[in-house]
């Protein structure tokens, strides 16, 4: 049994993959609580796809791919903030336009390079087994920065998300806080690219938070439970990927989905089964 657990991580690339997956599971789940509470799932997905042209341009220009992704994500995050701030375009419309445009531009650019199919697959669904030591430092550094910002801005993010009106009357700037949240989201997505890819990062942002929301009633505990779900999903997903020889990003996401399904049916008070039992007892 012990051998079964330790065997995969005798390999250097599997060790790096484990660290990367745990870091990504942690940072996505914690920030994902705000994505769930503010109904930003679509925005997160759009932001993830928007990095595609950035990666492609960086590849063509021969600079670091993550740097390209970061610039693209920040530009789109600020672009969505700008378009919706003045109320001329509805948010979901603005997201839909930028999402499709960025994805198309990315595919167009990548299709102009030689190794179209392989590169695109790695970008879309991640390549956690290919994480280098340098990648790991970058991932860890960015993730630590995001988690630190979430901790330092806890009250600001809570106020701006829960009651922007009160935030205004207390002299705060909820609009600015939302912009900061978009930037944190962009950073998180870039951190997650290599593990789960642009196609699956939205799931990792939303699923652990949604699972936690069924099990908790206060934001700090929601974040803690989401973090546990995210980290456990990453580790379990990586084992599944090793022993069943399947894609690691997809295995991680499906493990998180399994956690959600269990919580959806069995959660105390809010689970489907609990509510049905309550109805049966009442009726």
């Amino acid at each position, binding site marked *: 049994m012990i051998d079964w657990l330790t065997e995969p991580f005798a390999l250097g690339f599997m060790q790096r993959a484990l660290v990367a997956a745990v870091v990504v599971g942690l940072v996505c789940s914690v920030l994902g609580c705000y994505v769930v509470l503010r109904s930003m799932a679509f925005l997160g997905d759009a932001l993830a796809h928007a990095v595609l042209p950035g990666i492609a341009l960086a590849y063509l220009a021969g600079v670091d791919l993550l740097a390209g992704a970061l610039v693209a994500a920040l530009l789109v995050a600020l672009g969505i903030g700008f378009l919706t701030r003045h109320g001329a375009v509805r948010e979901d419309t603005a997201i839909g336009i930028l999402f499709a445009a960025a994805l198309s531009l990315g595919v167009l650019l990548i299709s102009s390079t030689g190794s179209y199919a392989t590169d695109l697959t790695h970008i879309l669904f991640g390549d956690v087994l290919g994480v280098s030591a340098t990648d790991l430092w970058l991932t860890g550094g960015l993730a630590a920065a995001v988690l630190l910002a979430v901790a*330092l801005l806890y009250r*600001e993010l809570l*106020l701006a998300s*829960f009651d922007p009106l*009160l935030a205004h009357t207390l*002299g705060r700037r909820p609009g600015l806080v939302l912009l900061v949240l978009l930037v944190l989201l962009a950073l998180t997505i870039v951190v997650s690219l290599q593990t789960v890819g642009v196609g699956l990062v939205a799931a990792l942002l939303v699923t652990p938070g949604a699972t936690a929301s069924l099990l*908790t*009633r206060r934001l700090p505990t*929601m974040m803690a439970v989401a973090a546990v779900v995210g980290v456990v999903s990453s580790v379990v997903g990586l084992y599944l990927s090793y022993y069943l020889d399947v894609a690691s990003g997809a295995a991680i996401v499906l493990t998180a989905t399994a956690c959600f399904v269990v919580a959806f049916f069995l959660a105390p008070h809010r689970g489907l089964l609990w509510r049905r039992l309550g109805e049966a007892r009442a009726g």
Partner: protein
Amino acid sequence: MTDMLALEDLTVRYNGHPALESVTLHVPHGAQVAIVGPNGAGKSTLFKAMVGLLRPQHGRVLVHGRPPGDQTDPVAYVPQREEIDWRFPVTVADVVMMGRYGRLGALRRPQAADREAVARALDELSIADLARRSIGELSGGQQHRVFLARALAQEPHVLLLDEPFTGVDASAKEALLGLLEVLRGEDITVLVSTHDMNTAATRFELAALLNSRLIAYGPPAEVFTAAHIGEAYGGQALFVGDMVVVDQCCPGHVGDGVAHRHSHAGEEQAP
């Protein structure tokens, strides 16, 4: 005597439509003022301008002679309906503690004084036993009291309550009026917007009659005259002998001769 709150020539427009026209209003320290007027008179606009949610085109708001943004928590505002997500994972105590965020800033941990202010506010609204409940589990009346408690936890100098008597039963209304008596003892300046002219006339020392412009302001007996009410409510006011009947339910119906069926709130004896 110094004015606690001064509005000077305040004009606010929405998309070019005037909501408030040159309103000048001086409220003395510790006074309780009822703001009365028909639907769309600008009562909510007045409050939003006072807390800086709306920027006036003209004029200014002064608290203690300074703009409200200059000070910590000078003005607490309880809107008519909270536009929040009731499924948000916060407890009653969490929400009331938000009233302290203005003093706490971004990072300072709540001190004993903050916890005491929260406990006192919960007690004053008789919701201490609900402190650990999620806000989504509360009834509508309880939810409103949570937000009143949060406003008290701000320890404001000025408290603005937008239509607090609308949609509450008689006992909740008496409880709220009892709370206003307590606040009077604490020298907190209170402005309350209401449709309820009887309550405004009998339970407040000052009343302001508003319809975009400030029509009258002063002791209720001087404010609620037939002439002023007619000016504020226009076609919605019906004069029957000495009586003034004001229709506040369904604007436009008074002139159709069905005033009595629709007159819910205000029947005022003209002096």
